[in-house]
């Protein structure tokens, strides 16, 4: 794909152009008597018997605004925003990949978009079949027999996965109290385990940034329900001892949970089920290209091994011998429902569209993501410090170690990147890398964009040496300059009107 890249010169502000005025809030555009709709006159009585005492005479502070003002307001806001449709969005671990437009077209087909969730089974065969097909596709890709599509996002998927483990252990009379999580895991893992009622024990990574088998062996007692492993971990490093890890966990009767938010690093190349993973969530809004970051909603399906199938959330989508589909509520061992209806259904359509578009070549997604991350790594090594230098998968984690010696932090570098027309990477995460700059280009980008990004990052490293104040004062070209993050957090203002 060829993408035009804005050079710093093109982005730099034209001195003849006045600074953009601050945008008024939508409330400030309100004007007495403006309306954005027109309804036909009532042909029924205009009261429905609500007692007078309960009725408000007027709505205080109601925004009165015309349709054109609303349209302009939000269009202007969107023009000042930055999105994947404008340029590289290398937010590590967030997998901000392109959302193919054909997926949007599929999701807008009236048969899907207008389907009523309470329509009878006979009229819902198409929607049920699509959910069934997506489950089959995800089961094939994970190498695990069944998948629930219900979870609304990754964190709910994590919770669902751990609740499945908990139920399975309780059912078999082996209730446990602890979940192990390495310090290189996604930050939501400890919260999910805690939410499911477990005590969390952190495992310290070895100097390579992966699981230390000796540490795991010692920590893996009869009281451990599961190890929650992010694969590849947040350093972008694959747990190459995964089979040993699975053996240690299974030997003590525990379950191996995989945080599959980074599945895009090996989808179509390797199957988690063959690695000994028992339960795994995926993010349709990451690996399978459905929109997120404000464009969502998310979707976090969970794939499970055979022994966890009885506990899956109900209803499941099943196929009868005659080829028709139905919702199976008759699952007495289920952990219950996670949310209304089937889940965020529009995302199922988009994800299946993406998977179908690649077909058997879906491994190209992972190969492209890994190649791109390593291309950036090679282009910036020596310029930015790399604490863990094992082979990178889909993302690479640099730090500001060299630049902090010049008094410039990762925050300054990230802000300066905006002046070069790129979205900043993920920062200060994972916590085991101080001053982290976590970069994930995804498979979306072609070489010209990656080269421009590398050039910008090298340029910023040079600026840190030659004119650190320029970097510390960034961004200089955005509609809003450096915001006071500390002031905003310490003095919360949550209301426009005091």
């Amino acid at each position, binding site marked *: 794909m060829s993408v035009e890249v804005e050079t710093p010169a093109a982005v730099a502000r034209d001195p003849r152009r006045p600074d953009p005025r601050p945008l008024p809030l939508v409330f400030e555009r309100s004007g007495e008597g403006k309306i954005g709709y027109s309804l036909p006159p009532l042909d029924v009585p205009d009261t429905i018997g609500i007692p007078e005492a309960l009725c408000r005479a007027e709505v205080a502070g109601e925004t009165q605004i015309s349709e054109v003002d609303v349209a302009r307001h939000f269009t202007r806001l969107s023009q000042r925003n930055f999105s994947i449709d404008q340029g590289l969005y290398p937010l590590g671990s967030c997998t901000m990949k392109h959302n193919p437009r054909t997926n949007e077209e599929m999701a807008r087909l009236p048969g899907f978009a207008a389907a009523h969730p309470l329509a009878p089974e006979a009229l819902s065969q198409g929607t049920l079949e699509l959910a069934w097909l997506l489950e089959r596709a995800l089961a094939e890709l994970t190498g695990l027999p069944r998948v629930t599509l219900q979870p609304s996002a990754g964190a709910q998927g994590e919770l669902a996965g751990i609740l499945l483990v908990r139920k399975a252990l309780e059912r078999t009379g082996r209730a446990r109290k602890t979940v192990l999580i390495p310090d290189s895991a996604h930050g939501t893992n400890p919260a999910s385990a805690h939410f499911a009622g477990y005590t969390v024990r952190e495992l310290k990574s070895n100097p390579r940034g992966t699981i230390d088998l000796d540490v795991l062996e010692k920590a893996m007692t009869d009281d451990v329900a599961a190890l929650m492993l992010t694969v590849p971990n947040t350093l972008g490093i694959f747990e190459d001892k995964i089979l040993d890890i699975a053996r240690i966990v299974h030997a003590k009767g525990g379950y191996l949970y995989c945080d599959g938010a980074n599945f895009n690093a090996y989808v179509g190349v390797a199957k988690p089920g063959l690695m000994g993973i028992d339960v795994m969530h995926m993010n349709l809004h990451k690996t399978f290209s459905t929109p997120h970051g404000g464009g969502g909603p998310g979707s976090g399906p969970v794939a499970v091994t055979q022994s966890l199938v009885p506990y899956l959330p109900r209803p499941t989508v099943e196929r009868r011998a005659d080829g028709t589909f139905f919702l199976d509520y008759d699952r007495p061992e289920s952990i219950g429902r996670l949310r209304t209806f089937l889940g965020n259904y529009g995302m199922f359509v988009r994800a299946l569209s993406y998977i179908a578009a690649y077909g058997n070549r879906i491994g190209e997604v992972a190969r492209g993501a890994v190649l791109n991350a390593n291309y950036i790594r090679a282009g910036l090594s020596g310029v930015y*410090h790399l*604490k863990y230098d094992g082979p990178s998968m889909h993302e690479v984690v640099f*730090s500001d*170690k060299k630049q902090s010696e010049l008094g410039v932090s990762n925050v300054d570098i990230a802000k300066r990147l905006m002046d070069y027309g790129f979205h900043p990477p993920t920062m*200060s995460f994972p*916590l085991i890398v*101080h001053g982290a700059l976590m970069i994930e280009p995804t498979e979306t980008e072609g070489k010209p964009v990656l080269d421009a990004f590398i050039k910008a990052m090298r340029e910023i490293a040079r600026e840190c040496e030659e004119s650190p104040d320029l970097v510390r004062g960034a961004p200089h070209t955005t509609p809003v300059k450096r915001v006071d993050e*500390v002031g905003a*957090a*310490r003095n919360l203002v949550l209301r426009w009107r005091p």
Partner: protein
Amino acid sequence: MNPEDLRYADSHEWVRVEGDVGTIGITDHAQKQLGEIVYLELPEVGHMYDAGDEFGTVESVKAVSELFTPVSGEVVAVNKGAVGEPGIINDDPFGDGWLIKLKLSTDVEIGKLMSAEAYGEYVAAEEQEK
């Protein structure tokens, strides 16, 4: 820079012992690493902790970190001032930025913590690892 009369934990908390009460805070190194602190959560008086337990969280614009008590005991005081104005931890980590006071369950744990000098070396070694 690390006061000589305090004892230090590898999780970057300090303890000052006066009689059977230990005052706990985070070190100057810890506050520098966190950056400007914007939020602090501390327990209620009366809570019991074992050494190594998490007793609260501290949040900067960069990250949320847990606070661990290096010693066991019952909470007898919390620094409400620091909860209201968490910036005080940045300004005076060894003084007005203290966090909680514990009535110590035992006096043997304190001996296992680091001296100011040992902690200084520990931080230097950690910096090397970065």
